[in-house]
């Protein structure tokens, strides 16, 4: 029997994607990390620590919420996995707690991280504060201006935020810069990558750390007697919340749906390429220069996608669609008004697809689980500006 979302091969490949495309200077660190993770992930003491921290500090398990009103409106059974209720407001905490613990296990005292809108940066700063690690966050200069409050939040948490002035001054450049800096301090410093991207073992490791949400959701639906949903749906930037969700359902009958931003749809409009240490689907020009993604949500403003998603798309185990900025704004408002949950703009992509496709690609009566990957508090000011300028 074919099974899905297994471990990658010894060099970190998911089919023809993934791998490890990094400077030689970083290879030892990647190898050390892989070994440390493999070892930790098989060590009950580590697992206990990880689960205890996520439970007692991170707020796990997060609930699954049934949406009465929307279900009725849409003619489907709609459930939400509530990662917005995790500490710091999104699924990002699952990953950073794992990597911060691993940092200590490797005897390192510091983490660096990249961030776009700031969610992963805040989560990283949080985990570092909790575990007594130093933390430096690389953030595109443009993003530091757009998200000044998140910069301050990281600083309150004791982190140093470094504005990145190269390239487009956004997330993709923050990753480049974090990699460059990592080269200079691999001895003491772990690079705490924020999604299922980058060189092996990151895509695999981050998926494993995020799989807690998918496994939780599967058993919560089981306990409620809902059983296996017909579809599980998640938004996709790098793809970590989607990977975590899919991991809980990959070997079930559920259809796996990833929803990208229309302007950052690496599967939809990208082609295979190599960036940030991985071979995956990328948005690039006809001569192979990487292009900027464009999306209303900073967290999906990434021209690539995690390699395992490229693979799952390739073998058609998962399907990837996209949602436009306008649909996303509508979806955010609809969920808020009918269910009392203001979702993150990222998350609203998954919802927008469900709202658009209910009764179309989603047969009426289907049971659909959407990963509510984060809360919208961070986005409220931006949404207010946009709606005001439209009216």
């Amino acid at each position: 029997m074919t099974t899905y979302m297994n471990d990658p091969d010894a060099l970190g490949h998911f089919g023809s994607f993934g791998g490890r495309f990094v400077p030689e200077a970083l290879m030892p660190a990647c190898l050390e990390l892989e070994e440390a993770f493999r070892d930790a992930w098989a060590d009950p003491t580590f697992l206990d620590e990880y689960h205890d921290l996520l439970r007692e500090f991170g707020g796990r398990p997060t609930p699954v919420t049934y949406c009465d009103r929307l279900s009725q409106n849409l003619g489907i059974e709609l459930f939400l996995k509530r990662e917005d209720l995790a500490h710091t407001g999104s699924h990002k905490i699952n990953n950073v707690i794992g990597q911060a613990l691993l940092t200590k296990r490797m005897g390192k005292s510091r983490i660096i991280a990249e961030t776009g809108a700031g969610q992963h940066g805040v989560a990283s700063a949080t985990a570092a504060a909790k575990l007594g690690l130093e933390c430096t966050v690389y953030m595109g200069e443009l993003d530091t201006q757009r998200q000044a409050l998140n910069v301050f939040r990281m600083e309150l948490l004791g982190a140093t935020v470094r504005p990145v002035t190269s390239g487009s001054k956004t997330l993709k450049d923050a990753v480049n810069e974090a990699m460059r800096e990592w080269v200079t301090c691999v001895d003491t410093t772990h690079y705490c990558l924020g999604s299922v991207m980058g060189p092996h073992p990151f895509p695999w490791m981050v998926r494993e750390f995020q799989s807690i949400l998918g496994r939780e959701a599967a058993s919560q639906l089981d306990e409620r007697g809902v059983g296996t949903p017909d579809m599980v749906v998640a938004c996709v930037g790098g793809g970590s919340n989607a990977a975590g969700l899919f991991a809980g359902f990959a070997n079930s009958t559920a259809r796996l749906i990833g929803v990208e931003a229309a302007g950052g749809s690496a599967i939809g409009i990208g082609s295979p390429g190599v960036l940030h240490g991985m071979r995956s689907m990328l948005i690039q020009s006809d001569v192979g220069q990487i292009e900027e993604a464009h999306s209303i949500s900073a967290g999906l403003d990434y021209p690539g996608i995690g390699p395992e998603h490229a693979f799952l798309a390739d073998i058609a185990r998962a399907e990837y669609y996209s949602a436009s900025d306008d649909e996303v704004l509508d979806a955010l408002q609809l969920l808020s008004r009918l269910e009392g949950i203001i979702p993150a703009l990222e998350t609203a992509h998954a919802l927008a697809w469900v709202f658009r496709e209910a009764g179309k690609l989603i047969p009426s009566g289907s049971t659909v689980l959407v990963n509510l990957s984060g809360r919208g508090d961070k986005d409220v000011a931006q949404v207010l500006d946009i709606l005001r300028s439209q009216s």
Partner: protein
Amino acid sequence: MTSLDVELRSVRDGGRKALVPYFVAGLSDDWPDHVRAAVHAGADAVEIGIPFSDPMMDGVVIQEAADIALRRGTTLLSILDELSTLDVGVPLVAMTYYNLFHHLGLERSAGALRAAGISGTIVPDLPIEELGSWQSACNDQDVACVLMVAPSTPLERVERVNSLSQGFVYASARMAVTGAASDGGHAADVVQRVRLSGDKPVYVGIGITTPKQAETAAGFADGVIVGTALVQRLLGGEGAAGVEAFVGELRRAIDAA
């Protein structure tokens, strides 16, 4: 053995320390003149940097130069086009990131490189684990794959890199991306460890900024690579004359080693 191996061994066997300046191709209209000037001033080979949108191994100076080149519309093929008419009589080694070759196609890229007169490549984000298909595509065209060793590379890995590297072994003087540095870093150590497992020429790069540093490195290595210091001068407005002067200085320093 590729022809790059042959040529660079003959430099070494002639008792000469190799000097390899680095240029960002397409930085200005007259960039080929800069290459010519460098060769005129005594370069033994030239590293041709092909600008990429996301230069993960490069510091701010080379990033800036690459940005300028890209905004000028420079592409891999436009560079190769210009190079095909540039016959400077020393080996040219292309340095860029893997995506450009991956995107164009490996066979096609290697063929285009060779057609442009390039005999080696340095692809810093392509470690030995992922090297296979690129190296065979290159070797089919007699293009060498120059590999890097870093201060962090463990001995067992140094051996493997050493055995796979062609033309020379690129010994990174420090744990850093390209850029200026105030000392010689770990260059001597790295070179020594490379020498334990082979007899290929070993060149030092990453942070060699001054003639003094070049001289020191040439004391234990077979060659030195100078990038940022040169690109910095070009960004500062110096032209071919400046290149000739600076490369000349470096030449004299190395020869004095």
